């Protein structure tokens, strides 16, 4: 039986961590895009569209990510779309991310002073112009810190995709454990790698938050 050194374990985990990073990035960018569309729909004022977006957000915030992944992974093949774990993981995390970001950004848009809407309307701006030139630039400033903070949740969410068989950091940890019988070391290393990815994001979010508070004071 081959011997596994600590370096073998860490090296293989690092290889798998690339997939964790890639999945996080894709889910975050695509989720952000979907969230922006949903945010515009939500704030444009059509009551039915508003209710629909609210329902969407509540559905994803009120059910486990694992269930969302299972439904995509087992449900899409039923309507004739074959999905690999990678596609299901990407889609699932994108939808999950979009729901949370919609809710975070809605709060930021609503925190922009109401007078700004009224003033820009008085200048004859339509909804698109108001959003583009007046509201979003101000909301963006408030939104950066909680958005960076949420990216940590996305990275941690990718761990759940290991359960539908997507080979990222956590799944690699399980596979290596089965080969080495050293769960303490392997899962310890897995945790450290997640920490190395997430902690800088957390720190950055906190620094941004501090900056924002100092400006508004």
């Amino acid at each position, binding site marked *: 039986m081959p011997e596994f050194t600590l370096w073998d374990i860490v090296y293989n985990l690092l290889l798998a961590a690339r997939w964790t990073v890639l999945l996080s990035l894709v889910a975050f960018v695509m989720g952000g895009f979907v969230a922006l569309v949903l945010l515009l729909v939500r704030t444009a004022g059509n009551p039915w569209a508003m209710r629909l977006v609210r329902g969407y957000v509540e*559905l994803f915030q*009120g*059910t*486990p*990510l*694992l*269930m*969302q992944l*299972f*439904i995509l992974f*087992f*449900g899409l093949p*039923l*309507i004739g779309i074959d999905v690999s774990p990678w596609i299901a993981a990407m889609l699932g995390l994108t939808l999950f991310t979009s729901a949370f970001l919609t809710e975070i950004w809605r709060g930021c848009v609503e925190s922009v002073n109401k007078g700004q809407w009224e003033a820009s309307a008085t200048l004859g701006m339509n909804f698109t112009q108001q959003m583009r030139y007046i509201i979003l630039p101000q909301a963006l400033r408030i939104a950066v810190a909680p958005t960076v903070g949420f990216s*940590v949740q996305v990275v*941690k*969410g*990718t*761990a*759940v995709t*290991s*359960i539908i068989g997507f080979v990222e950091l*956590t799944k690699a*940890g*399980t596979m290596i*454990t089965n080969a080495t019988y*050293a*769960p*303490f070391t392997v*899962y*310890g290393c*897995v*945790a450290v790698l*997640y*920490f190395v990815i*997430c*902690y800088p994001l*957390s720190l950055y979010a906190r620094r941004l938050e501090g900056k924002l508070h100092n400006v508004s004071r």
Partner: protein
Amino acid sequence: MAYQFDFGSILPHWKLLLDGVVLTTELAAVGAVAGVGLGILGAWARSSRIPVISQIVAVYVELIRNTPFLVQLFFIFFGLPALGVKLSEFQAAALAMVINLGAYSTEIVRAGIQAIPQGQIEAAQSLAMNRVQIFRYIVIRPALKKIWPALSSQVVIVMLGSSVCSQIAAEELTFAANYIQGMNFRAFEVYFVTTGMYLVMSIVLRQILKIFGNFLFERRHHA
């Protein structure tokens, strides 16, 4: 060939799903009570005058908040036996939830404590109250009241997160769903129904926490 949905095939297994709901509820209850308790202790220790204690708590909070719950669970269930700590599936799941919620609620409760006006604490000091009395009678209740919505959301998140405990064979709701779909091969139907059950549970839990919060904070007389 179009797929024929068959939600009726779940009905014979309703007892399994019910058992799953019960266990998920138990996990959530243990996690919520002990986790929030741990969070209050942690927030208290975080404001300790002894720097080492405060720093240890800070490290705990950062370690837990920056790693996935699933990895924490695997570490506790598969990793700790190497140190001679052997836990049952339920114990490992409950412990992971308590530790996880404890870290988040430490941060949340701390934010509430920091929002207490300094004058209140000075006033209590001038009445010769000691640190424990000040914390118990002056600080904690208004602090909790302030952060109750955030704390409630975190409890719901942890309850939903318990679905990954199926991976260490803790027999909660997701485990029941996996088990049923292994028998009737109706994966989509089973997970669809289970997802609905989680949705209902999270709505009910949110309401319970809201009512409990009102009960805790709205009473006029002193406890």
